[in-house]
Protein backbone atom coordinates (compact mmCIF):
# COMPACT_ATOMS: atom_id res chain seq x y z
CA UNK A 1 0.00 0.00 0.00
CA UNK A 2 2.86 2.40 0.74
CA UNK A 3 4.26 1.77 -2.73
CA UNK A 4 0.80 2.27 -4.22
CA UNK A 5 0.55 5.58 -2.36
CA UNK A 6 3.85 6.72 -3.92
CA UNK A 7 2.58 5.75 -7.39
CA UNK A 8 -0.56 7.81 -6.75
CA UNK A 9 1.51 10.79 -5.64
CA UNK A 10 3.81 10.64 -8.65
CA UNK A 11 0.83 10.20 -10.97
CA UNK A 12 -1.06 13.21 -9.59
CA UNK A 13 2.05 15.41 -9.53
CA UNK A 14 2.74 14.48 -13.16
CA UNK A 15 -0.93 15.10 -14.02
CA UNK A 16 -0.70 18.52 -12.42
CA UNK A 17 2.40 19.27 -14.48
CA UNK A 18 0.71 18.13 -17.69
CA UNK A 19 -2.42 20.20 -17.00
CA UNK A 20 -0.27 23.26 -16.30
CA UNK A 21 1.66 22.63 -19.51
CA UNK A 22 -1.64 22.40 -21.38
CA UNK A 23 -2.75 25.72 -19.85
CA UNK A 24 -1.18 27.81 -22.55
CA UNK A 25 -2.27 29.39 -25.78
CA UNK A 26 -2.26 26.83 -28.59
CA UNK A 27 -2.50 23.83 -26.25
CA UNK A 28 -5.74 24.58 -24.42
CA UNK A 29 -8.44 22.55 -26.16
CA UNK A 30 -11.14 22.20 -23.56
CA UNK A 31 -9.03 20.06 -21.23
CA UNK A 32 -10.23 20.24 -17.60
CA UNK A 33 -7.18 22.22 -16.47
CA UNK A 34 -8.96 23.49 -13.35
CA UNK A 35 -9.67 20.10 -11.79
CA UNK A 36 -6.95 20.33 -9.17
CA UNK A 37 -8.18 23.77 -8.08
CA UNK A 38 -11.74 22.46 -8.12
CA UNK A 39 -10.83 19.46 -5.96
CA UNK A 40 -9.99 21.74 -3.04
CA UNK A 41 -13.02 22.06 -0.74
CA UNK A 42 -11.37 25.15 0.77
CA UNK A 43 -11.74 26.91 -2.60
CA UNK A 44 -15.24 25.51 -3.10
CA UNK A 45 -16.48 26.33 0.40
CA UNK A 46 -14.76 29.73 0.47
CA UNK A 47 -16.25 30.76 -2.88
CA UNK A 48 -19.64 29.38 -1.83
CA UNK A 49 -19.65 31.35 1.44
CA UNK A 50 -18.45 34.55 -0.24
CA UNK A 51 -20.53 34.53 -3.40
CA UNK A 52 -23.29 31.93 -2.82
CA UNK A 53 -22.29 30.31 -6.06
CA UNK A 54 -20.72 27.00 -7.08
CA UNK A 55 -19.26 27.60 -10.53
CA UNK A 56 -18.33 25.14 -13.28
CA UNK A 57 -16.49 22.16 -11.69
CA UNK A 58 -16.23 23.55 -8.16
CA UNK A 59 -18.62 20.89 -6.84
CA UNK A 60 -15.73 18.41 -7.03
CA UNK A 61 -14.46 20.03 -3.82
CA UNK A 62 -17.56 18.90 -1.96
CA UNK A 63 -17.11 15.35 -3.27
CA UNK A 64 -13.56 15.48 -1.91
CA UNK A 65 -14.92 16.68 1.44
CA UNK A 66 -17.35 13.74 1.55
CA UNK A 67 -14.55 11.32 0.66
CA UNK A 68 -12.44 12.76 3.47
CA UNK A 69 -15.29 12.32 5.93
CA UNK A 70 -15.13 8.60 5.16
CA UNK A 71 -11.41 7.96 4.69
CA UNK A 72 -9.59 10.84 6.37
CA UNK A 73 -6.93 13.10 4.83
CA UNK A 74 -6.12 10.77 1.93
CA UNK A 75 -6.02 13.85 -0.31
CA UNK A 76 -2.98 15.16 1.60
CA UNK A 77 -1.13 11.87 1.48
CA UNK A 78 -2.08 10.53 -1.94
CA UNK A 79 -3.26 13.33 -4.25
CA UNK A 80 -2.13 16.87 -3.37
CA UNK A 81 0.64 17.86 -5.84
CA UNK A 82 2.10 20.43 -3.44
CA UNK A 83 2.06 17.78 -0.70
CA UNK A 84 3.99 15.43 -2.97
CA UNK A 85 6.54 18.12 -3.77
CA UNK A 86 7.01 18.87 -0.07
CA UNK A 87 7.12 15.14 0.68
CA UNK A 88 10.01 14.85 -1.77
CA UNK A 89 11.92 17.75 -0.25
CA UNK A 90 11.32 16.36 3.26
CA UNK A 91 12.61 12.97 2.13
CA UNK A 92 15.76 14.55 0.70
CA UNK A 93 16.36 16.53 3.90
CA UNK A 94 15.73 13.55 6.21
CA UNK A 95 18.43 13.02 8.86
CA UNK A 96 20.03 9.58 9.25
CA UNK A 97 19.54 9.31 12.99
CA UNK A 98 16.22 7.71 13.97
CA UNK A 99 16.34 9.58 17.26
CA UNK A 100 16.54 12.90 15.50
CA UNK A 101 13.73 11.92 13.15
CA UNK A 102 11.52 11.02 16.12
CA UNK A 103 12.19 14.46 17.62
CA UNK A 104 11.29 16.17 14.36
CA UNK A 105 8.09 14.14 13.99
CA UNK A 106 6.76 14.84 17.44
CA UNK A 107 3.31 16.43 17.50
CA UNK A 108 3.42 20.09 18.53
CA UNK A 109 0.46 22.17 19.65
CA UNK A 110 1.50 24.68 16.96
CA UNK A 111 -0.13 22.25 14.51
CA UNK A 112 -3.46 23.56 15.77
CA UNK A 113 -2.62 26.91 14.15
CA UNK A 114 -3.85 25.69 10.76
CA UNK A 115 -7.34 25.01 12.16
CA UNK A 116 -7.50 28.55 13.52
CA UNK A 117 -6.30 29.91 10.16
CA UNK A 118 -8.98 27.95 8.28
CA UNK A 119 -11.75 29.13 10.54
CA UNK A 120 -10.54 32.74 10.20
CA UNK A 121 -10.39 32.46 6.39
CA UNK A 122 -13.85 30.92 6.15
CA UNK A 123 -15.29 33.54 8.52
CA UNK A 124 -13.85 36.28 6.31
CA UNK A 125 -15.31 34.49 3.27
CA UNK A 126 -18.74 34.47 4.92
CA UNK A 127 -18.46 38.27 5.07
CA UNK A 128 -17.55 38.40 1.39
CA UNK A 129 -13.76 38.68 1.64
CA UNK A 130 -12.27 35.65 -0.12
CA UNK A 131 -8.60 35.27 0.81
CA UNK A 132 -8.62 31.46 1.07
CA UNK A 133 -6.92 31.19 -2.30
CA UNK A 134 -3.83 32.99 -1.00
CA UNK A 135 -3.03 29.98 1.22
CA UNK A 136 -4.87 27.17 -0.52
CA UNK A 137 -2.15 24.70 -1.57
CA UNK A 138 -3.57 24.13 -5.05
CA UNK A 139 -3.99 27.85 -5.70
CA UNK A 140 -0.53 28.49 -4.25
CA UNK A 141 1.08 25.86 -6.46
CA UNK A 142 -0.84 26.99 -9.56
CA UNK A 143 0.13 30.60 -8.94
CA UNK A 144 3.76 29.70 -8.28
CA UNK A 145 3.86 27.57 -11.42
CA UNK A 146 2.28 30.27 -13.58
CA UNK A 147 4.31 33.20 -12.29
CA UNK A 148 7.62 31.58 -11.27
CA UNK A 149 8.25 28.00 -12.41
CA UNK A 150 6.92 28.18 -15.99
CA UNK A 151 8.69 31.49 -16.77
CA UNK A 152 11.90 30.04 -15.28
CA UNK A 153 11.60 27.01 -17.56
CA UNK A 154 10.98 29.39 -20.45
CA UNK A 155 14.09 31.39 -19.58
CA UNK A 156 16.15 28.19 -19.33
CA UNK A 157 14.87 27.10 -22.72
CA UNK A 158 15.61 30.57 -24.06
CA UNK A 159 19.24 30.20 -22.99
CA UNK A 160 19.59 27.02 -25.04
CA UNK A 161 17.36 27.45 -28.08
CA UNK A 162 17.06 31.27 -28.22
CA UNK A 163 13.54 30.85 -29.53
CA UNK A 164 11.23 30.65 -26.53
CA UNK A 165 9.00 33.67 -25.97
CA UNK A 166 9.83 35.61 -22.86
CA UNK A 167 7.29 35.77 -20.07
CA UNK A 168 7.65 38.12 -17.16
CA UNK A 169 5.54 38.94 -14.12
CA UNK A 170 5.56 41.81 -11.67
CA UNK A 171 6.02 40.63 -8.10
CA UNK A 172 7.43 37.29 -9.28
CA UNK A 173 10.24 37.57 -6.71
CA UNK A 174 7.64 37.87 -3.94
CA UNK A 175 5.75 34.76 -5.06
CA UNK A 176 9.06 32.94 -5.58
CA UNK A 177 10.16 33.83 -2.03
CA UNK A 178 6.97 32.46 -0.52
CA UNK A 179 7.27 29.28 -2.59
CA UNK A 180 10.96 28.84 -1.66
CA UNK A 181 10.11 29.36 2.01
CA UNK A 182 7.37 26.71 1.80
CA UNK A 183 9.92 24.32 0.27
CA UNK A 184 12.80 25.23 2.57
CA UNK A 185 10.90 24.87 5.85
CA UNK A 186 10.72 21.12 5.19
CA UNK A 187 14.39 20.94 6.11
CA UNK A 188 13.43 21.92 9.64
CA UNK A 189 10.26 19.84 9.92
CA UNK A 190 9.04 17.31 7.34
CA UNK A 191 6.01 18.66 5.45
CA UNK A 192 6.11 21.83 7.55
CA UNK A 193 3.43 23.54 5.45
CA UNK A 194 1.02 20.58 5.66
CA UNK A 195 1.47 20.19 9.41
CA UNK A 196 1.35 23.76 10.62
CA UNK A 197 -0.11 26.06 7.96
CA UNK A 198 -2.17 24.39 5.25
CA UNK A 199 -5.79 25.57 5.66
CA UNK A 200 -6.97 22.92 3.21
CA UNK A 201 -5.32 20.22 5.30
CA UNK A 202 -7.04 21.67 8.35
CA UNK A 203 -10.44 21.67 6.65
CA UNK A 204 -9.93 18.05 5.58
CA UNK A 205 -8.69 17.25 9.08
CA UNK A 206 -11.83 18.75 10.58
CA UNK A 207 -13.93 16.70 8.14
CA UNK A 208 -12.15 13.47 9.13
CA UNK A 209 -13.90 13.72 12.46
CA UNK A 210 -16.49 11.25 11.19
CA UNK A 211 -14.09 8.79 9.49
CA UNK A 212 -15.27 5.22 9.09
CA UNK A 213 -11.79 3.78 8.74
CA UNK A 214 -8.38 4.81 10.07
CA UNK A 215 -4.95 3.54 11.07
CA UNK A 216 -5.23 2.24 14.61
CA UNK A 217 -2.79 0.72 17.09
CA UNK A 218 -3.08 -2.67 18.75
CA UNK A 219 -1.86 -2.18 22.32
CA UNK A 220 -1.26 -5.92 22.75
CA UNK A 221 1.28 -6.07 19.96
CA UNK A 222 2.93 -2.64 20.26
CA UNK A 223 6.34 -2.70 21.95
CA UNK A 224 6.74 1.10 21.93
CA UNK A 225 9.82 0.78 19.72
CA UNK A 226 9.17 4.19 18.12
CA UNK A 227 9.82 3.18 14.49
CA UNK A 228 6.39 4.57 13.49
CA UNK A 229 7.26 7.95 14.98
CA UNK A 230 10.47 8.11 12.97
CA UNK A 231 8.63 7.66 9.66
CA UNK A 232 5.40 9.64 10.23
CA UNK A 233 5.48 12.78 8.00
CA UNK A 234 2.28 14.13 9.52
CA UNK A 235 3.37 14.12 13.19
CA UNK A 236 0.12 12.37 14.04
CA UNK A 237 1.46 10.48 17.11
CA UNK A 238 1.06 6.91 15.79
CA UNK A 239 2.87 5.50 18.86
CA UNK A 240 0.22 6.78 21.26
CA UNK A 241 -3.32 7.95 20.48
CA UNK A 242 -3.11 8.50 16.73
CA UNK A 243 -4.61 11.82 15.57
CA UNK A 244 -6.79 11.11 12.57
CA UNK A 245 -7.16 14.84 11.87
CA UNK A 246 -3.39 14.99 11.29
CA UNK A 247 -2.83 11.56 9.68
CA UNK A 248 -2.19 11.58 5.88
CA UNK A 249 -3.04 7.84 5.72
CA UNK A 250 0.33 7.49 3.97
CA UNK A 251 0.90 3.92 5.22
CA UNK A 252 4.51 4.61 6.29
CA UNK A 253 3.88 3.44 9.85
CA UNK A 254 1.85 0.40 8.78
CA UNK A 255 4.59 -0.63 6.36
CA UNK A 256 7.39 -0.19 8.89
CA UNK A 257 5.80 -1.50 12.11
CA UNK A 258 7.85 -4.62 13.02
CA UNK A 259 5.04 -6.06 15.18
CA UNK A 260 2.15 -5.33 12.74
CA UNK A 261 0.49 -3.46 15.58
CA UNK A 262 -0.50 -0.58 13.33
CA UNK A 263 -3.18 -1.51 10.82
CA UNK A 264 -5.83 0.29 8.84
CA UNK A 265 -9.15 -0.84 10.30
CA UNK A 266 -12.82 0.05 9.95
CA UNK A 267 -13.93 2.01 12.97
CA UNK A 268 -17.71 2.05 12.57
CA UNK A 269 -18.36 1.87 16.27
CA UNK A 270 -15.76 3.81 18.19
CA UNK A 271 -17.45 3.37 21.52
CA UNK A 272 -17.49 -0.40 21.23
CA UNK A 273 -13.89 -0.30 20.02
CA UNK A 274 -12.59 1.29 23.17
CA UNK A 275 -14.05 -1.62 25.16
CA UNK A 276 -12.87 -4.32 22.76
CA UNK A 277 -10.33 -5.46 25.24
CA UNK A 278 -9.84 -9.15 24.73
CA UNK A 279 -6.53 -10.91 25.07
CA UNK A 280 -5.88 -11.06 21.32
CA UNK A 281 -6.49 -7.46 20.29
CA UNK A 282 -6.80 -4.35 22.39
CA UNK A 283 -7.18 -1.25 20.20
CA UNK A 284 -6.17 2.26 21.06
CA UNK A 285 -9.07 4.30 19.61
CA UNK A 286 -7.84 7.26 17.51
CA UNK A 287 -8.47 10.90 18.33
CA UNK A 288 -10.55 12.27 15.47
CA UNK A 289 -10.88 15.94 16.36
CA UNK A 290 -8.33 18.63 17.15
CA UNK A 291 -8.11 19.70 20.76
CA UNK A 292 -8.93 23.36 20.31
CA UNK A 293 -9.90 25.60 23.18
CA UNK A 294 -13.07 27.65 22.96
CA UNK A 295 -10.84 30.70 23.29
CA UNK A 296 -8.85 29.87 20.16
CA UNK A 297 -12.07 29.27 18.23
CA UNK A 298 -13.44 32.64 19.32
CA UNK A 299 -10.06 34.13 18.43
CA UNK A 300 -10.32 32.60 14.96
CA UNK A 301 -13.77 34.13 14.44
CA UNK A 302 -12.46 37.49 15.61
CA UNK A 303 -9.46 37.17 13.29
CA UNK A 304 -11.82 36.47 10.39
CA UNK A 305 -13.76 39.63 11.13
CA UNK A 306 -10.46 41.50 11.50
CA UNK A 307 -9.38 40.28 8.04
CA UNK A 308 -12.58 41.72 6.59
CA UNK A 309 -12.29 45.03 8.42
CA UNK A 310 -8.54 45.35 7.94
CA UNK A 311 -8.54 44.74 4.21
CA UNK A 312 -11.28 47.29 3.73
CA UNK A 313 -9.72 50.02 5.83
CA UNK A 314 -8.68 52.03 2.80
CA UNK A 315 -12.34 52.07 1.81
CA UNK A 316 -11.64 52.22 -1.89
CA UNK A 317 -11.43 48.55 -2.84
CA UNK A 318 -14.97 48.31 -4.08
CA UNK A 319 -15.17 51.86 -5.37
CA UNK A 320 -13.49 53.50 -8.32
CA UNK A 321 -10.31 54.37 -6.49
CA UNK A 322 -7.88 52.50 -8.69
CA UNK A 323 -7.27 53.71 -12.27
CA UNK A 324 -4.85 50.85 -12.96
CA UNK A 325 -7.31 48.20 -11.75
CA UNK A 326 -7.99 47.18 -15.35
CA UNK A 327 -9.70 43.79 -15.25
CA UNK A 328 -9.73 41.35 -18.17
CA UNK A 329 -12.80 41.27 -20.43
CA UNK A 330 -15.60 39.20 -18.90
CA UNK A 331 -14.59 40.04 -15.32
CA UNK A 332 -17.57 40.48 -13.00
CA UNK A 333 -18.29 43.84 -11.31
CA UNK A 334 -15.56 44.44 -8.70
CA UNK A 335 -17.52 43.37 -5.60
CA UNK A 336 -18.65 40.09 -7.22
CA UNK A 337 -15.22 39.60 -8.76
CA UNK A 338 -13.47 39.78 -5.37
CA UNK A 339 -16.00 37.33 -3.91
CA UNK A 340 -14.93 34.72 -6.46
CA UNK A 341 -11.33 35.30 -7.51
CA UNK A 342 -9.01 32.71 -5.95
CA UNK A 343 -5.84 34.50 -7.14
CA UNK A 344 -4.73 31.16 -8.61
CA UNK A 345 -3.05 32.83 -11.59
CA UNK A 346 -4.36 30.40 -14.20
CA UNK A 347 -5.63 33.33 -16.30
CA UNK A 348 -2.12 34.83 -16.21
CA UNK A 349 -0.72 31.47 -17.33
CA UNK A 350 -2.93 31.23 -20.42
CA UNK A 351 -2.85 34.91 -21.42
CA UNK A 352 -1.07 34.85 -24.80
CA UNK A 353 0.36 38.37 -24.57
CA UNK A 354 1.44 38.32 -20.90
CA UNK A 355 -0.73 41.38 -20.20
CA UNK A 356 -2.43 39.73 -17.19
CA UNK A 357 -0.34 40.35 -14.10
CA UNK A 358 -0.79 39.69 -10.38
CA UNK A 359 -1.95 42.93 -8.75
CA UNK A 360 0.42 44.37 -6.19
CA UNK A 361 -1.13 47.73 -5.29
CA UNK A 362 -3.36 48.20 -8.35
CA UNK A 363 -6.47 46.71 -6.71
CA UNK A 364 -5.95 47.51 -3.02
CA UNK A 365 -5.17 45.12 -0.18
CA UNK A 366 -8.25 42.99 -0.81
CA UNK A 367 -7.35 42.54 -4.46
CA UNK A 368 -3.70 41.62 -3.84
CA UNK A 369 -2.59 39.00 -6.44
CA UNK A 370 -5.83 39.27 -8.45
CA UNK A 371 -5.36 39.62 -12.23
CA UNK A 372 -5.00 43.10 -13.71
CA UNK A 373 -3.91 44.17 -17.17
CA UNK A 374 -0.54 45.92 -17.29
CA UNK A 375 0.24 47.26 -20.77
CA UNK A 376 3.97 47.39 -20.03
CA UNK A 377 3.89 43.61 -20.48
CA UNK A 378 1.34 43.15 -23.24
CA UNK A 379 -2.11 44.10 -24.50
CA UNK A 380 -5.50 42.43 -24.64
CA UNK A 381 -5.58 40.39 -27.86
CA UNK A 382 -8.75 41.28 -29.75
CA UNK A 383 -9.78 37.74 -30.74
CA UNK A 384 -9.04 36.00 -27.44
CA UNK A 385 -11.17 35.00 -24.45
CA UNK A 386 -8.83 32.40 -22.91
CA UNK A 387 -8.74 33.93 -19.39
CA UNK A 388 -12.47 33.39 -18.99
CA UNK A 389 -12.23 29.84 -20.34
CA UNK A 390 -9.90 28.73 -17.53
CA UNK A 391 -11.26 30.76 -14.59
CA UNK A 392 -12.43 28.05 -12.14
CA UNK A 393 -14.87 30.23 -10.21
CA UNK A 394 -16.37 32.39 -12.94
CA UNK A 395 -14.79 35.59 -11.56
CA UNK A 396 -13.91 36.05 -15.23
CA UNK A 397 -16.98 34.87 -17.10
CA UNK A 398 -16.85 32.61 -20.15
CA UNK A 399 -17.59 35.01 -22.98
CA UNK A 400 -17.57 34.46 -26.73
CA UNK A 401 -15.49 36.47 -29.19
CA UNK A 402 -18.76 37.86 -30.58
CA UNK A 403 -19.80 39.08 -27.10
CA UNK A 404 -16.37 40.60 -26.54
CA UNK A 405 -16.40 42.45 -29.85
CA UNK A 406 -20.04 43.49 -29.50
CA UNK A 407 -21.50 41.52 -32.40
CA UNK A 408 -24.23 42.00 -33.37
CA UNK A 409 -25.50 44.71 -30.96
CA UNK A 410 -22.48 46.97 -31.49
CA UNK A 411 -21.66 47.20 -27.79
CA UNK A 412 -18.27 45.58 -27.18
CA UNK A 413 -16.96 44.80 -23.70
CA UNK A 414 -14.87 47.76 -22.58
CA UNK A 415 -12.07 47.06 -20.09
CA UNK A 416 -11.15 50.74 -19.89
CA UNK A 417 -10.43 53.77 -22.04
CA UNK A 418 -7.23 55.16 -23.57
CA UNK A 419 -6.24 58.77 -22.83
CA UNK A 420 -3.61 60.89 -24.58
CA UNK A 421 -0.89 62.56 -22.59
CA UNK A 422 -0.57 65.67 -24.72
CA UNK A 423 2.52 66.72 -22.83
CA UNK A 424 4.38 63.72 -24.25
CA UNK A 425 2.63 62.79 -27.50
CA UNK A 426 4.90 63.71 -30.47
CA UNK A 427 2.31 65.52 -32.69
CA UNK A 428 0.96 67.39 -29.66
CA UNK A 429 4.12 68.23 -27.73
CA UNK A 430 7.00 67.85 -30.19
CA UNK A 431 5.37 69.11 -33.41
CA UNK A 432 6.25 65.90 -35.27
CA UNK A 433 3.93 63.48 -36.99
CA UNK A 434 3.75 59.96 -35.58
CA UNK A 435 0.48 57.98 -36.14
CA UNK A 436 1.62 54.65 -34.60
CA UNK A 437 -1.38 54.43 -32.25
CA UNK A 438 -3.83 55.28 -35.04
CA UNK A 439 -2.40 52.60 -37.31
CA UNK A 440 -2.24 49.91 -34.60
CA UNK A 441 -5.73 50.48 -33.15
CA UNK A 442 -7.37 47.09 -33.75
CA UNK A 443 -11.06 47.93 -33.53
CA UNK A 444 -13.08 48.64 -36.65
CA UNK A 445 -13.94 51.44 -37.11
CA UNK A 446 -10.82 52.72 -35.35
CA UNK A 447 -11.13 54.37 -31.96
CA UNK A 448 -8.21 56.70 -32.69
CA UNK A 449 -8.82 59.34 -35.34
CA UNK A 450 -6.69 62.26 -36.48
CA UNK A 451 -7.39 65.91 -37.16
CA UNK A 452 -5.05 67.89 -39.43
CA UNK A 453 -3.99 71.16 -37.83
CA UNK A 454 -1.83 73.97 -39.21
CA UNK A 455 0.76 74.98 -36.63
CA UNK A 456 3.62 77.48 -36.41
CA UNK A 457 6.92 75.69 -35.81
CA UNK A 458 9.83 76.97 -33.72
CA UNK A 459 11.80 78.03 -36.82
CA UNK A 460 8.96 80.27 -37.95
CA UNK A 461 7.68 78.00 -40.71
CA UNK A 462 4.16 76.65 -40.92
CA UNK A 463 3.35 72.94 -41.07
CA UNK A 464 0.30 70.70 -41.04
CA UNK A 465 0.32 68.17 -38.22
CA UNK A 466 -1.87 65.10 -37.97
CA UNK A 467 -2.95 65.07 -34.32
CA UNK A 468 -4.59 61.96 -32.80
CA UNK A 469 -7.72 61.80 -30.62
CA UNK A 470 -9.58 58.96 -28.85
CA UNK A 471 -13.24 58.24 -29.52
CA UNK A 472 -14.36 56.85 -26.12
CA UNK A 473 -17.44 55.23 -27.67
CA UNK A 474 -15.23 52.99 -29.80
CA UNK A 475 -12.22 52.44 -27.52
CA UNK A 476 -12.37 49.08 -25.71
CA UNK A 477 -9.30 49.64 -23.53
CA UNK A 478 -7.21 46.83 -25.03
CA UNK A 479 -4.01 48.82 -24.57
CA UNK A 480 -2.39 47.97 -27.90
CA UNK A 481 -1.79 51.71 -28.51
CA UNK A 482 -0.12 52.07 -25.11
CA UNK A 483 1.99 48.98 -25.75
CA UNK A 484 3.18 50.20 -29.16
CA UNK A 485 3.64 53.93 -28.40
CA UNK A 486 7.21 54.90 -29.38
CA UNK A 487 7.64 56.60 -25.99
CA UNK A 488 8.54 53.30 -24.38
CA UNK A 489 9.31 54.39 -20.81
CA UNK A 490 6.03 56.19 -20.21
CA UNK A 491 3.74 55.98 -23.22
CA UNK A 492 1.95 59.11 -24.38
CA UNK A 493 -1.33 57.20 -24.59
CA UNK A 494 -2.37 55.19 -21.54
CA UNK A 495 -5.39 53.12 -20.58
CA UNK A 496 -7.24 53.57 -17.31
CA UNK A 497 -10.22 51.60 -16.04
CA UNK A 498 -12.54 54.55 -16.74
CA UNK A 499 -15.65 53.56 -18.63
CA UNK A 500 -15.29 49.80 -18.12
CA UNK A 501 -18.45 47.91 -19.05
CA UNK A 502 -18.64 45.88 -15.83
CA UNK A 503 -18.94 49.05 -13.69
CA UNK A 504 -22.33 49.71 -15.24
CA UNK A 505 -23.50 53.16 -16.24
CA UNK A 506 -23.19 56.40 -14.24
CA UNK A 507 -19.74 57.20 -15.61
CA UNK A 508 -19.36 60.25 -17.80
CA UNK A 509 -17.90 58.29 -20.73
Amino acid at each position, binding site marked *: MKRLRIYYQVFFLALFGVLMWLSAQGRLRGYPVTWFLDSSPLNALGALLASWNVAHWMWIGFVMLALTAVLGRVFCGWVCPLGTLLHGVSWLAEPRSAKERITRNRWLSAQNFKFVLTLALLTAAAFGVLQAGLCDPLALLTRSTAVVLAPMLGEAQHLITRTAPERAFQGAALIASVFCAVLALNVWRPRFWCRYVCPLGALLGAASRWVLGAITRDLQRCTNCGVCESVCPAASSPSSTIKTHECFVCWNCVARCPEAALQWRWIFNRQKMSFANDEKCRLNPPATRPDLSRRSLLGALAAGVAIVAGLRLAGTTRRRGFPLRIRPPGALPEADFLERCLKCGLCMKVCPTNVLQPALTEAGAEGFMTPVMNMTYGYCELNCTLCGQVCPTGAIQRITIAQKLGHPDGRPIKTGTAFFDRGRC*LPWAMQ*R*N*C*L*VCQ*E*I*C*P*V*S*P*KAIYTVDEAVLLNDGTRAVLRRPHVDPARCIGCG*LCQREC*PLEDKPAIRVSAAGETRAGSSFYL
Partner: protein
Amino acid sequence: MHQAIHEVIADLATFITPTLVIMDGTRLLLSNGPTGGSAADVAPGNVVAAGTDQVAVDALACTWLNVRPGDVEFIHLAAQLKLGSPDWRALPHFKEVTV
Protein backbone atom coordinates in the same frame (compact mmCIF):
# COMPACT_ATOMS: atom_id res chain seq x y z
CA MET B 1 10.61 55.14 -37.61
CA HIS B 2 7.07 56.46 -38.07
CA GLN B 3 8.20 60.01 -37.38
CA ALA B 4 10.10 60.13 -40.70
CA ILE B 5 8.31 57.32 -42.48
CA HIS B 6 8.80 58.58 -46.06
CA GLU B 7 12.56 59.09 -45.74
CA VAL B 8 12.85 55.70 -44.04
CA ILE B 9 11.01 53.87 -46.84
CA ALA B 10 13.12 55.53 -49.53
CA ASP B 11 16.36 54.88 -47.61
CA LEU B 12 15.47 51.21 -47.09
CA ALA B 13 14.89 50.86 -50.83
CA THR B 14 18.51 51.91 -51.52
CA PHE B 15 19.76 48.82 -49.66
CA ILE B 16 18.54 46.19 -52.11
CA THR B 17 17.40 46.58 -55.69
CA PRO B 18 14.93 43.76 -56.34
CA THR B 19 15.18 41.71 -59.55
CA LEU B 20 11.42 41.30 -59.77
CA VAL B 21 8.61 43.17 -57.94
CA ILE B 22 5.15 41.63 -57.64
CA MET B 23 2.21 43.64 -56.24
CA ASP B 24 -0.91 41.66 -55.28
CA GLY B 25 -4.14 43.66 -55.48
CA THR B 26 -6.61 40.78 -55.38
CA ARG B 27 -8.15 42.19 -52.16
CA LEU B 28 -7.70 45.83 -51.21
CA LEU B 29 -7.95 47.05 -47.60
CA LEU B 30 -9.20 50.62 -48.11
CA SER B 31 -9.67 51.89 -44.55
CA ASN B 32 -9.05 51.11 -40.85
CA GLY B 33 -5.77 49.39 -41.67
CA PRO B 34 -3.38 47.93 -40.99
CA THR B 35 -4.51 46.37 -37.68
CA GLY B 36 -8.15 47.32 -37.42
CA GLY B 37 -9.39 46.44 -40.89
CA SER B 38 -12.42 44.20 -40.96
CA ALA B 39 -13.96 42.33 -43.88
CA ALA B 40 -16.27 45.28 -44.52
CA ASP B 41 -13.26 47.50 -45.28
CA VAL B 42 -11.97 45.17 -48.03
CA ALA B 43 -12.77 45.75 -51.71
CA PRO B 44 -12.14 43.20 -54.47
CA GLY B 45 -9.32 44.55 -56.67
CA ASN B 46 -8.59 41.49 -58.77
CA VAL B 47 -5.36 43.00 -60.13
CA VAL B 48 -1.72 41.91 -60.01
CA ALA B 49 1.24 43.96 -61.16
CA ALA B 50 4.77 42.71 -61.88
CA GLY B 51 7.82 44.67 -62.94
CA THR B 52 11.53 45.30 -62.50
CA ASP B 53 11.10 48.95 -61.43
CA GLN B 54 9.99 49.09 -57.79
CA VAL B 55 9.04 52.78 -57.93
CA ALA B 56 6.87 52.30 -61.00
CA VAL B 57 5.05 49.33 -59.45
CA ASP B 58 4.42 51.33 -56.23
CA ALA B 59 3.11 54.29 -58.22
CA LEU B 60 0.77 52.03 -60.21
CA ALA B 61 -0.52 50.38 -57.01
CA CYS B 62 -1.36 53.82 -55.56
CA THR B 63 -4.04 54.20 -58.22
CA TRP B 64 -5.72 50.99 -57.01
CA LEU B 65 -6.07 52.57 -53.54
CA ASN B 66 -7.51 55.80 -55.05
CA VAL B 67 -4.34 57.71 -54.13
CA ARG B 68 -2.50 59.94 -56.63
CA PRO B 69 1.17 58.84 -56.85
CA GLY B 70 2.17 62.50 -56.92
CA ASP B 71 0.77 62.91 -53.36
CA VAL B 72 2.98 60.17 -51.91
CA GLU B 73 6.22 61.62 -50.64
CA PHE B 74 8.32 58.47 -50.57
CA ILE B 75 7.72 57.95 -54.29
CA HIS B 76 9.13 61.43 -54.95
CA LEU B 77 12.11 60.74 -52.73
CA ALA B 78 12.77 57.37 -54.39
CA ALA B 79 12.69 59.01 -57.83
CA GLN B 80 15.15 61.64 -56.62
CA LEU B 81 17.46 58.86 -55.41
CA LYS B 82 17.19 57.37 -58.92
CA LEU B 83 15.71 54.12 -57.65
CA GLY B 84 13.17 54.06 -60.49
CA SER B 85 10.62 56.07 -62.39
CA PRO B 86 7.14 56.87 -61.06
CA ASP B 87 5.78 57.21 -64.60
CA TRP B 88 4.95 53.59 -65.34
CA ARG B 89 3.17 54.40 -68.60
CA ALA B 90 6.42 55.68 -70.09
CA LEU B 91 8.21 52.38 -69.42
CA PRO B 92 9.37 50.71 -72.68
CA HIS B 93 7.72 47.32 -72.04
CA PHE B 94 4.52 48.42 -70.23
CA LYS B 95 1.64 46.11 -71.09
CA GLU B 96 -1.87 45.58 -69.66
CA VAL B 97 -3.32 42.07 -69.84
CA THR B 98 -6.82 40.86 -68.96
CA VAL B 99 -7.09 37.22 -67.94
